[in-house]
């Protein structure tokens, strides 16, 4: 479902003497439907960089990233837009929303974008928010004023609203209490059970051991010259 072949990435900093920083080379991995693969490696080793290349907000120097039949490394913007709408979900660490939009609509938005009728989309959003223990009195408010943990749960609800065949998770259980952590792990297990391919970063080792079928150490992808 997700297949990465011989992927390389470097950054060119034009405003700092055009310094070229190679950050990744020879990256290979694959995630099958129903499988969860965890990325490990020290902070700065390139876990988030790899996730962002799959999401398409980081460009690729060379290599192939197949997701659901599309090579993200070569794809046109509108193909990536369609991929994100229908195939690939992403729970990032940051919630980016239009201020003043109610939480319920923030969570329902991915479904509305797919053409799901408003009532059905909001019903699904309500179900997820309730499950993630966001009090109903907050659903009509914008999540921009919420605590870090609440925002993260809103972000998770949004990422799980549509049953994407592929999912990227960046620290989905960070800053959650035990009860909510359990809910999130349950959501991940259900997604696997319905056949989703998941690529994730989990600093929470117990969580990683529970949901990941395999781990991949991104330090193996460090460019040799820089090592």
């Amino acid at each position, binding site marked *: 479902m997700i297949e990465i072949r011989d992927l390389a990435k470097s950054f060119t900093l034009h405003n700092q003497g055009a310094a070229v920083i190679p950050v990744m080379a020879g990256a290979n991995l694959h995630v099958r439907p129903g499988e969860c693969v965890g990325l490990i490696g020290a902070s700065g080793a390139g876990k988030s960089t790899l996730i962002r290349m799959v999401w398409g907000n980081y460009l690729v120097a060379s290599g192939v990233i197949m997701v659901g039949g599309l090579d993200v490394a070569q794809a046109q913007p509108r193909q990536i837009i369609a991929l994100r709408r229908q195939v690939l979900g992403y729970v990032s660490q940051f919630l980016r929303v*239009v201020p003043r939009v109610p939480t319920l609509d923030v969570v329902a938005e991915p479904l509305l974008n797919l053409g799901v009728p408003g009532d059905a989309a909001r019903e699904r959003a309500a179900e997820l928010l309730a499950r993630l223990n966001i009090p109903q009195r907050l659903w009509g408010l914008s999540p921009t004023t919420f605590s870090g943990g609440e925002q993260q749960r809103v972000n998770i609800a949004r990422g799980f609203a549509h049953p994407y065949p592929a999912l990227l998770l960046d620290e989905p259980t960070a800053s959650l209490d035990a009860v909510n952590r359990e809910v999130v792990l349950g959501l991940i297990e259900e997604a696997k059970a319905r056949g989703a391919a998941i690529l994730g970063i989990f600093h929470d080792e117990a969580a990683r051991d529970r949901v990941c079928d395999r781990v991949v150490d991104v330090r193996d992808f460090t460019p040799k010259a820089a090592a």
Partner: protein
Amino acid sequence: MGAVDLSIWAKVNADKPLLSVQGLSKNYGNRIGCADVSFDLFPGEVLGIVGESGSGKSTLLSCLAGHLAPDTGRVIFETAQGPRDTVTMAEAERRKMARTDWAFVHQNPRDGLRMGVSAGGNVGERLMAVGARHYGDIRATAVDWLGRVEIAADRIDDRPRAFSGGMQQRLQIARNLVTGPRLVFMDEPTGGLDVSVQARLLDLLRGLVREMGLSAIIVTHDLAVVRLLADRLMVMKGGHVVEQGLTDQVLDDPQHSYTQLLVSSVLQV
């Protein structure tokens, strides 16, 4: 389970551009307005154009919308009768298209509204321009549209002069969208507004784009606005497009030195 229906790619790839811009240039004497701009815009897509003052973004928008004649280049629009070059089109035909298939939202609502005419009249006038004649229908549609842009029905007979800046901008949007255009040009639509009013307008625009399947081209200097509104982004400097791509890719992994400078110059709040 988990398999992806690969027909989605066939469908995406079969889409024809709504607007295809090829080699568009406009000079002011020997100063460059915009130079050799080319891009395709697909149905339902929102394209953001960013750049500093004088970068050529407003010149480009004016050329695209037919307000300014480019020196060279083509602007091919997919009309109901097939693709047509709007640059070489007869003026009358282009004007008709500007009232029906296209809409233009100005930064200053005063440039897009008739300030001496009531709110309902501003919306109804556009309907009459495309042939609506039944007063009751026109008024009902106007009330419906005022509601969609969150203007209370009891303000229908007030003139825009009595409205706040945010309300005027929403009225301008209603006036423009009432005829069901397929392409909307917007020049700094949130420009002169308070941030709280901006947020409401952004949400409104996103909803309308989604519900009506609109394509839009939005010129702005506000990177936060394009991140929330635009699917794709084009960065201009000195009349040239220096970088274009998926919005979050251009903002998160900018390739051109000017884009890197632009992104790193934004103040964090």
